[in-house]
């Protein structure tokens, strides 16, 4: 979406592809926070 409207997003964002927002469980979220992520945005 950001690409099609040619928007820019900060370099500090890390995009991870998931097949469906339902695939994102608490373990993945906790792991990302444990690795130092400040926030997690699940975009469906």
């Amino acid at each position, binding site marked *: 979406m950001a690409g099609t409207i040619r928007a820019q997003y900060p370099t500090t964002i890390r995009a991870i592809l998931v097949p469906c927002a*339902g695939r994102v469980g608490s373990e993945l979220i906790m792991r990302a926070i444990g690795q130092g992520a400040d926030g997690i945005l699940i975009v469906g």
Partner: protein
Amino acid sequence: MLAANRNPNITTMTMAEVLEVDGYIGNFSVKVRKNPRYVYEDICTGCGACSDVCPIYMPNYFDENLSARKCIDVAFAQAVPAVWDLQTDWCVECYACVDSCDVHCIDLSQEPEIVEFEVGTIIIATGWDIYEPEEYGYGKYDNVITQIQLERIIAPNGPTLGHLKRPSDGKRPKNILFINCVGSRNEEHPWCSNVCCLLSIKNSKLIKSEYPDSNIVVSYIDMRCAGKAYEEYYKRSRDAGIMFINGKVGTLRENPETKNLIATMESIGTGGIIEYEADLVVLSSASLPSAGTNEIANILKVEKSPSGFLKEFHSRLDPIETKITGIYICGSCQGQKDIGATVNQARGAAQAASIPMTAGEYTIELIRAQANDERCAKCYKCIETCPYSAISVDEAGKIVVDLINCKGCGMCAAVCPSIAIELRYYRDYQYNAIIDTLFEA
């Protein structure tokens, strides 16, 4: 409808209800209950001798209850099949019809029949229902009717044989007010019903051409006449002298003596409050998903949109398929649309369904859930979570994934506490590696 019924490759089942659907594309098994008609379809000749002797009159639902029909009667003149039916709610079991029938096709002891069969693909076309207005005194004031009731009144085979008469005294209404967007475009039903603007124009134009001395006012929020030749049609109706007032009717009250209705509305175009006395008020009420939409969505496990209409795979790129492979939708069960759009979608759905049927095979992606029995703690959370009902348990208690119904969303993998069910190519250890690497830098 008649052509479809006569096609040797099409079997129609009337008065039937789908009870259960199992399986997947190419192998759906369907269980249908055929409700009793109390008349044998293959024997009835449609002579109508039974209606002549039937002593019971009941409201005619096809005429929006504006006329009466016999308890045993044909649903409407063009009904397919053209076979009589008996309404048990009103029947007094006098058996006069049974005695009158020469071919002995009436049987009051008929029971519901369960039919099971196999199909390859399914198309849902359950249509829409009209919202019964609570606004503007509908049901309380005699001369407030819906568009569908007006359609029946001006139909040549309708209750008044096409003569425009108002319900209270049977006189011809001269001043007619149409109110658009009744029960739609509000908080409860936020959608536009799509067809009412054109329906108001069509019916007002029909009345005006039949009775040129009629005064017709259409009160609207927006006139939405998008589509081929629709805007021109709107212009022609304005040229014909139909008055369109931008402003919604605030109050409607009845004059108890004349049964006329006095509408108060604010005209946005000219400013100020208008009072208009109408002989007949026609409400364009909202379209709603048809009564059985919830049930059929649950039986077929098809998703619904927030509005209650059935949800398509993608609203613009794939408005025909559903998320269940092999099940297609068309017409107003998917969303509000006019006849042209319905025909387009119906043809599209028939074509889309015929592609896998002709090919005889169907290719699935490899992104599917995979169960690992050694790690499984048998909590069965995955079964509860799966939106496609693709996970089940076999006799030995092992988790089995139906690879055709599974759509590879990975919700089972997200809820599994012991990594016993995983999604191919999107496994936990792969995600862990991605997350760890991304945050290393």
